[in-house]
């Protein structure tokens, strides 16, 4: 299968202190890859490096056949890469509608933005009922729907999703995971999913990557990873 994202020898960190040490990763188009690992493994830094928020000190990132070097974050967004950060990143001072509009603004085509927003309202009915509510008036689940919906308004090809289940009820987590699977199957969306909730992530992922202390320690099909008791016990804590 053609790779949408290929990462090789990626090293990155903060203030000269490396957090990622030579990461290799291959993400075929139309698949979900779960990135797993304990706190401090470097999962969030990996997503921040891929979306351009952290500049790598070494290694290559090839996205859709082109190497990303000194590419600005807004340019990456235009090329179909969306990043939903940890903590959801809903702008508390803007309304639901404004948050969603923001997701598609780079398109400049108003009709396209409106169509994208209508699709999101269809996917997440609670948001349609709270269009004029401010971001800080939403529940945790609604805020996660908004963050995800805002990313989808941009119609991304690659979605980087950081801890979408954090602080949510099991029922909402199941809904979100089900939606990701549906989007992959129906639209060919490619997802790189960072999750602490290993069981949920592996239940929808095609492949799993286990990270520890800034390194990839295991890559395997999700089913195999879920069944590997030794690996689970060593790195995933269950």
């Amino acid at each position: 299968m053609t790779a949408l994202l290929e990462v090789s020898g990626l090293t990155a960190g903060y203030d000269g202190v490396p957090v990622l040490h030579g990461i290799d990763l291959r993400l075929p188009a139309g698949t979900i890859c779960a990135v797993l690992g304990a706190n401090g493994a470097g999962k969030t830094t990996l997503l921040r490096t891929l979306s351009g928020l952290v500049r790598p000190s070494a290694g290559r990132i090839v996205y859709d056949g082109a190497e990303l070097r000194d590419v600005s974050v807004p340019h990456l967004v235009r090329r179909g890469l969306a990043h939903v950060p940890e903590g959801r990143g809903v702008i508390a001072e803007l309304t639901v509608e404004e948050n969603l509009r923001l997701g598609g603004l780079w398109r400049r085509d108003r009709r396209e933005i409106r169509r994208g927003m209508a699709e999101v309202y269809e996917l997440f009915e609670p948001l349609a009922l709270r269009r004029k509510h401010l971001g800080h008036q939403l529940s945790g689940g609604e805020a996660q729907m908004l963050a995800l919906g805002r990313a989808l308004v941009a119609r991304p090809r690659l979605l980087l999703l950081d801890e979408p289940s954090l602080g949510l009820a099991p029922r909402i987590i199941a809904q979100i995971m089900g939606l990701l699977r549906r989007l992959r199957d129906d639209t060919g969306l490619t997802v790189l999913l960072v999750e602490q909730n290993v069981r949920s992530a592996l239940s929808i992922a095609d492949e799993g990557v286990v990270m520890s202390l800034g390194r990839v320690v295991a890559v395997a099909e999700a089913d195999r990873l879920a069944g590997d008791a030794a690996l689970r016990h060593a790195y995933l804590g269950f």
Partner: protein
Amino acid sequence: MDRFLFLTVDGLSRGAVYAAFALALVLIWRGTRIVNFAQGVMAVATSYAAYSVTGATGSYWAGFFVALLAGLVLGAVVERVVMRHVEQAPPLNAVIVALGLVLVFQGGLGMIYGSQYLPLPTPYSRVAMTVGGVPLLSRYDLFVFGTVLALMLSLALLFTRTATGLRMRAAAFEPQVARLLGVNVGGMLTLGWALAALVGALAGMLVIPTGLGLHPTAMDLVFVSAFTAAVVGGLDSPLGAVVGGLVVGLVLSYVGGYLGSGTTPLAVLALLVVVLLARPGGLFSAAQARRV
């Protein structure tokens, strides 16, 4: 009663200018959490540009629009060249840099134009028109009200009805999230500074002709009043800046009118202290938004 009416109208007219200037401070505060102490002297610099152009062309309006354009450019340059380097630094750095800019601008303008007060004309008469035997508004007061009202409406439309306004708000509230959504955050901050400096330039052009005239320190007292207005309204609130400006204008007018003009600086200070003690966030401060 006639005097009260006169002082009220005079206070509202002055307050409208303070409101505009306070709005300039709020625009920058919301975007960068910096109080631009150089806002006053930047407005003076643009008024000097107007003075030169009006002197050369004989047209008030040529000078007026050059001042606004100069404000736009000056705000963008100051942000790009100077303030960008301290936007992420501790707050004191920005304060010191802004105060440094005040000294540089005041010194430079003094060297170019001298330290005497220069006359800046008004486009309309400042003689109050009489209504029912009471001298109330001058044509210039009406011009000030109309201009400030148009400014407020334009800014409100920009921020609530346009994509650029939405980008600017997103960049101000959550710069990192805005970047992840494709917003050019640096560009929006520059635009915010440019707009604020334009608003400041407009306030300068409206208020300087009503004082002693053009001088490198001509906006110092106006800055204090406008800063008070912004704090009274709540530094985060554009509506608060407008209301705060009108409140400060009225207080100064009443105190000056009934107790003598020498007491007005004390009145500003007293107002500032009372508001900071009673409601430190300002009259229009919103409750701290919950992070989601």
